């Protein structure tokens, strides 16, 4: 039955994450942006609370619980998008800095061997904050996931990696990074492999933390592999995964599959940002605008448009997550929600800036959100890439590959 009402569990996670975002994240959002980092004590504190960012599903408190009820309808993806919207509403930069496997989680979860899952996912304990990361993008290939140039040369007992990765969220602090490399560039996509490279591995270094337009509290790193030896047991999924029938399950497939679950999460963040800007502005309009005047009439239309667009993005995102929960193919829906949310959220922030007027320049949250939000239309596949994915699915029935 079609329903947009939250289940009890969904309501709970939403309320819990909203509480956390409102009481723990939002209060430090502006300060973290100014500092260019999330304070260490704060990270320590929330890690002890068990708050992590797993981009496939948000885990708060008991991660064990979810395994218990595998017979019930899976709702991890829906829970994930609900939770992420709330967290990003608090502050997207801080949300992306939360301890946990982050964007590195989904590939390990979906393609790792049982041994790898245990080894890499069990390190996120309350003892101290740790991060995972995901390293696909390279200097010469932004949205082109198939153009990976980092090489992996097979040697005895492992691979030697050489290459550079850029725009890696939490890449400097991560305990491990899922890095994509090619064993033979002439094989194209079939030659791709995914490796889990651990911090401290000789030849693996973080060469730079870049300064950005926004998301300043969140670390964005450049990583370098120089004759970096990675043992066989860190090949994600093991050799078996890549030997499988034909050339389907290559590292490229791992990367693509990851997108289907991370894109709705990224879309949720954009939605959370847009909603934060909208609510902030609505409050201000309610309190400060002269009642019933023409300013107020203009604001009414703009706010209605903003609210509509946020709802539109949210429903697209829910659909993508719902499909994922049912194990249905959701590449199209994931691309749709990301494409729409990424673009709409900037527009929302810009409209809110207009409603705030010049005072909005002086220490108001909305300007920070404006700076933060732009990247959501770029990372995890630009808007253009999302349109391509949508179009490709749309034409699939006609056997035309666009």
């Amino acid at each position, binding site marked *: *039955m*079609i*329903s*947009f*009402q*939250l*289940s009890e569990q*969904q309501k709970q996670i*939403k309320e819990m994450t909203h509480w956390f975002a409102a009481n723990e994240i939002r209060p430090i959002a502006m300060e973290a942006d100014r500092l260019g980092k999330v304070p260490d004590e704060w990270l320590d504190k929330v890690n002890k609370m068990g708050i992590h960012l797993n981009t496939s599903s948000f885990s708060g408190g008991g991660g064990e619980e979810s395994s218990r009820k595998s017979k019930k*309808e899976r*709702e991890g993806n*829906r829970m994930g998008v*609900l939770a992420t*919207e709330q967290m990003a509403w608090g502050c997207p930069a801080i949300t992306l800095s939360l301890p946990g496997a982050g964007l590195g989680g989904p590939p390990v979860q979906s393609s790792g061997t049982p041994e790898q899952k245990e080894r890499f996912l069990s390190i996120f304990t309350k003892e101290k904050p740790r991060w995972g990361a995901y390293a696909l993008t390279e200097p010469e290939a932004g949205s082109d996931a198939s153009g990976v140039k980092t090489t992996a040369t097979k040697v005895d007992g492992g691979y030697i990696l050489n290459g550079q990765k850029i725009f890696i969220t939490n890449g400097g602090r991560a305990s491990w990074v899922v890095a994509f490399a090619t064993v033979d560039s002439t094989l194209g996509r079939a030659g791709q492999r995914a490796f889990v490279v651990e911090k401290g591995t000789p030849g693996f270094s973080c060469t730079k933390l870049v300064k950005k337009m926004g998301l300043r509290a969140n670390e964005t790193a450049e990583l370098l592999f120089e004759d970096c030896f990675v043992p066989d047991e860190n090949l994600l999924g093991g050799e078996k995964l890549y030997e499988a029938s034909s050339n389907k399950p290559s590292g490229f497939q791992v990367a693509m599959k990851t997108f289907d679950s991370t894109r709705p999460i990224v879309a949720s963040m954009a939605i959370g940002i847009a909603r934060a800007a909208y609510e902030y502005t*609505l409050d201000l*309009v*309610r309190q400060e605008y002269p009642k019933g005047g023409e300013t*107020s*009439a203009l*604001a*009414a*239309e*703009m*706010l*209605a*448009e903003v*609210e*509509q667009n946020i*709802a*539109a993005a*949210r*429903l*697209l995102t*829910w*659909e993508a*997550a*719902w*499909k994922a929960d049912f194990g249905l193919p959701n590449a*199209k829906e994931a691309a*749709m929600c990301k*494409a*729409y949310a990424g673009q709409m959220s900037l527009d929302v922030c810009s409209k809110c800036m207009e409603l705030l007027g010049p005072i909005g320049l002086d220490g108001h949250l909305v300007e920070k959100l404006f700076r933060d939000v732009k990247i959501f239309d770029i990372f995890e596949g630009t808007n*253009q890439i*999302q*349109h*391509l994915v*949508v*179009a*490709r699915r*749309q*034409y699939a029935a*006609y056997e*035309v590959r*666009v």
Partner: protein
Amino acid sequence: MISFRSTEEELAFVEVAKNLAKEKIRPQARICERNQKLNEEIVQEVQELGFLSLELSEDWDGLELPLISQVQILQGLCYGDLDVVQGLPGAGDAASFIRFLNQRLDTYKTDIVDELQTVSYLDLSEDWGTNIEVKKEMNHYILNGMSQPVKLAAQADYVLIAVMDSNGEPILFWLDSSVHPWHVEEGDYRLGLLTSGIARFTFDHVKISTDAILAQGNTAEKIIQDGRTRVRILQAAREVGLMEAALDYATEYTASRKAFGQEIAKFQGVSFRIAKMAIETRIVNHLVWEAALQADQEHPEAEGLSLRALHRAHKSLRYVTDSAVQLLGGHGYIQEFPVEKWMRDAQAQVTLYGRERQCLKKRGEQIIAGNREEVMA
């Protein structure tokens, strides 16, 4: 629990509706337009399948389906042709009001449900363009003036009128052509929805006795508000059906049409437009569903959500039908292909059913007033 899965029953209904749309409605649409009249066979089939009484209650032999089911069925039907569906006889938009007034209108039941006599719904709330005066005198009302063009006016046997009288009191009138001598203006309609009997009513000091009052005061206000909400949702759903038709048609065309040595789908100038059309269509679908769900729950926010859904439906419908014409190029503009008609029908539809900016503004005022519980995800 958030879910986008239709029930088995809904899926069965939709399948029937869509088959009818593809096999009967679309192939006949051009002919109906030329004749400015529906094909009897279609009417009969639609009636037999119960699709004329989705919104009517069971006492009226209606299916009394929840809106969330109705909207899916309407989408399916309008996948065939919006104009044809708008032209269907019977209760029309008035059904959304009649359902609250069953007993009061019982004597008309057979005429409307079985004989398919037609009701036109006339909402006199627009703040300009209508110059109809409703004046109370002693034991009756005097109705005078000319209406804006409305659907089903040309073939109306009855008119349901929602209006504020000159004292500002909301009233619902029921006019019967055999009793109330209205006049239908001979108009000059060329744009679209040409089978749906768009016309203007003229009332020349028509005297309406209090018998013709279906409701007034608070009761009328509530029925008008709820009825309008339902009409908005059901109309927006029709628009989704047309959007889906235009999207699929343009997708198929661009997948096969070649230029510059390849299928034009391979040019991002084309394929990205298709992607945008797909996204917009999906968005409107969801907003309509959301409004329908809330209206079914009689949630106070349903009115606002219906405004929101209708606004987006109008905007996206214009975009999607225009895009379909654009992507077909010269073929989009000629009558051998359906998309030019769809674009005309779409513009007529949005012109007839509420101005986009008014919807937005009204919704915005509600938001700022904040006097309703917010439906928050």
